[in-house]
């Protein structure tokens, strides 16, 4: 119904514009109608250029005010997050300044120098000084950004094994995630999809004869102790997936046939994150939207939506097939004690096999 109405409205708008243009044309019937811009066209479009400049500024301001707090800036939950967010903010500020100035010049010149009969443009073909300026300024700004960016990148991608990171495998398949903890030895057992034996519940293809594999733990929820570096080893059994953990500023593709990796240190527990004022506000906002939605659903005789409570998430962010849009895993960051209590409850690999 909505769509039908939308289409109808669009059709009406189209007809209206068509009629308006016809009137325009009729009004000009006597004028010298060459379909080349006249002084009047230049004037009208020159003012519209100014209007359009205003439109660009307004849409920028509206977006920043209305949705600028949605971006995951300044609420990162990993050690490297703030550094990355800083770089993001610096880049955004530079973009904002350049955008504001260049759009102004472009549209203002288009307005200011709108054509008039009899005026002659300035014959100005070249100026080495000017061109040197706008080559060198970008060079300097970009050099700064490149150096800052590369430092950030290298510090994120280099995982120091001396920090004794917790080793966890993220295992992707259409359309769900599994996590495999390395157990007490903190070494993952060897694995290959050729060893998958569904009948024996060896769903990740772990090498049953590998001593390192015996204490591995496979789960469908990702629990991480706060403050301890984690090194993720990623595998996929079928197609490309991407392990995207936006709150931790972390992402890496999962590639069949190879093992990829990404490491970070979670710094904020799920409970703490739920208590931050920004998150309380965001969740309240989401819930008010959901209540509204629910009322509509109930009116239609359907079930209401569940209340939303914040959780960190692992999303699939590489197109992987029909249910790509619903491939997720909950991440829970908790204290070391809570984590240990949880992992003790899980079955180790050797006990999970069906003989």
């Amino acid at each position, binding site marked *: 119904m909505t769509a039908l109405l939308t289409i109808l409205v669009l059709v009406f708008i189209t007809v209206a514009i068509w009629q308006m243009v016809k009137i325009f044309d009729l009004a000009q019937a006597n004028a010298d109608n060459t379909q080349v*811009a006249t002084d009047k066209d230049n004037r009208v479009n020159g003012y519209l250029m100014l209007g359009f400049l205003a439109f660009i500024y307004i849409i920028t301001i509206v977006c920043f005010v209305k949705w600028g707090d949605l971006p995951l800036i300044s609420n990162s939950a990993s050690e490297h997050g703030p550094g990355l967010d800083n770089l993001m903010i610096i880049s955004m500020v530079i973009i904002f300044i350049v955008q504001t100035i260049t759009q102004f010049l472009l549209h203002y010149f288009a307005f200011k120098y709108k054509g008039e009969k009899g005026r002659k443009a300035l014959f100005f073909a070249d100026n080495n000084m000017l061109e040197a300026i706008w080559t060198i300024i970008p060079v300097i700004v970009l050099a700064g950004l490149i150096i800052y960016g590369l430092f950030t990148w290298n510090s*994120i991608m280099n995982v120091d094994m001396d920090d004794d990171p917790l080793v966890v495998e993220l295992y992707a398949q259409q359309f769900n995630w599994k996590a495999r903890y390395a157990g007490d030895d903190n070494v993952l057992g060897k694995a290959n999809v050729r060893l998958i034996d569904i009948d024996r519940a060896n769903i990740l293809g772990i090498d049953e004869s590998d001593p390192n594999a015996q204490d591995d733990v496979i789960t469908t929820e990702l629990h991480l102790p706060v403050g301890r570096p984690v090194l993720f080893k990623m595998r996929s059994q079928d197609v490309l997936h991407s392990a995207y953990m936006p709150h931790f500023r972390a992402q890496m593709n999962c590639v069949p046939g190879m093992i990829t990796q990404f490491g970070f240190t979670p710094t904020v527990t799920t409970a703490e994150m739920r208590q931050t004022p920004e998150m309380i506000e965001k969740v309240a906002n989401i819930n008010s939207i959901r209540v509204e939605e629910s009322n509509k659903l109930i009116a239609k005789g359907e079930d209401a939506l*569940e209340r939303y409570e914040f959780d960190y998430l692992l999303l699939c962010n590489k197109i992987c097939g029909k249910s790509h849009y619903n491939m997720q895993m909950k991440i829970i960051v908790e204290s070391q004690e809570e984590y240990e209590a949880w992992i003790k409850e899980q079955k180790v690999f050797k006990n999970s096999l069906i003989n």
Partner: protein
Amino acid sequence: MSAHEDTHAHDDHGHHHKETFVTKYIFSQDHKMIARQYLITGTIMGVIGVLMSLMFRMQIAWPEQPNVLFEALLGKWAPDGVMDADIYLALITIHGTIMVFFVLTAGLSGTFSNLLIPLQIGARDMASGFLNMLSYWMFFLSSVVMIISLFVEAGPAAAGWTIYPPLSALPLAQGGSGAGMTLWLVSMAIFIASSLLGSLNYIVTVINLRTKGMSMTRLPLTIWAFFITAIIGVISFPVLLSAALLLIMDRSFGTSFFLSDIFIQGEVLHYQGGSPVLFEHLFWFLGHPEVYIVLLPALGITSEVIATNSRKPIFGYRAMVASILAIAFLSTIVWGHHMFISGMNPFLGSVFTFTTLLIAIPSAVKAFNYITTLWKGNLQLNPAMLFSIGLVSTFITGGLTGIILGDSALDINVHDTYFVVAHFHLVMGISALYGMFAGIYHWFPKMFKRMMNKNLGYVHFWVTAICAYGVFFPMHFIGMAGLPRRYYTNSNFPLFDDLSNVNVIITLFALVGGAFQLVFLWNLFYSIFYGKKTVQNPWRSNTLEWTAPIKQIHGNWEGEIPHVYRWAYDYSKPGHDDDFVPQNVPLKEGEEELQH
């Protein structure tokens, strides 16, 4: 530099053959007719591509709502009018493919390279009219195959326009990876052959067939752009062809170039030793230069249109040529920025960050030069000029966010989110589309001997300009909020519920913007037949195509081809009464040609 006297051999070319309907309108070897064929085919493909985007935008805004449009157009893929998740992925895949390759590569380059290269360099026709005809008909064939692929039983290709294996290689992984993907690959292989034939022809023509006096430094910037674009195409398209062929081998003949260790639907497949990352390298070795294959012709058109309508020389001709060359060179060594988190060595990520951010420098030079060209001009705000100014605007807005995405560290968190979608749509999609519109409005009189209606042109531009920003500006913000692209619906992530109203706004802008393209289509097709008759040089432009007669003749000029005495940008030159001096006007006594 070189000038060629052998053009006389072609002089009486037109009088030899008697033209039939078939040789004139269908299997024509005349570059002007082939340009028109490209334009019409590209426009039809564009309508299909845009319609697809409107459909999936409606699904994103109003997920899983019944829609009469879906029921009518998607048939079995929309039971009770609710779009199926598989066809959603197919729509985004084919939308991307059609817009990037069929509209903005073939439709844009094919139309204007064909039309303008011979006319602006002063040649009777392309170097090989036959290859040119072949190039168009292979493009037509590939379009037909692509359209046919929409109707196969298991659905069209749905692995994203980047068709990463294994998803694109395994019918078990996705219905669209069966016959639909086979046809997609066949279509692209034919398309690439067509593109290579065209590009070779453009290169040879520009090098060999310039008229007397048309040195490389007197070439209009349009020709420079088309010339360099053709060179990039010849370098990079064959790599995509090889990727497509290897993928066909993996799919149909059991090789393992891109596949290894796969367990799917309860069975282990035999593939071993290949790597999907290899495919990503091959794909993006074309995929990134492709951005410039799309964009450079648009920038070339813009240079010409802005100079003509500003009544001023383009500012910094040499810098413009140098930046085209720099962009072309850099474009072939930045492909890895699409793969920062693909699992390739992080050190490579550093290298590609460096080369990628370098490309911002020639881009900035171009933007500033356009703005300076406007300064103290006498701007004739024709529809083509508006679209050119619009292009500079979206090129800046879209280009600037490139310094975020090109930065490997920042890419971690916005990779494959809507931030990317917003970025590339503005910087290459909308910009190139504006370039194409500018070209159509500007050279329509040359192509069809009639003028397009300017008022419809104005309406078309302003609504499109507002809607383009309305669609893609807010999209950056939902991307920064972490919303992944290519999700059929976000309803499984309450986390993103507060973004749903943004998605509705975006879709409304898209629908209005899409609907107003009807104004353009009407103007285009109506004016072909009933537009106002044009004068020979309606925009009072300097380039050679406007010295050719309105009546289109095979061989372009009656009698001798005009000689060239000056560059293309002598607008408002002091010492001349008119504010333009065509290239074929000899220097006055004592007049000096500008050192450029």
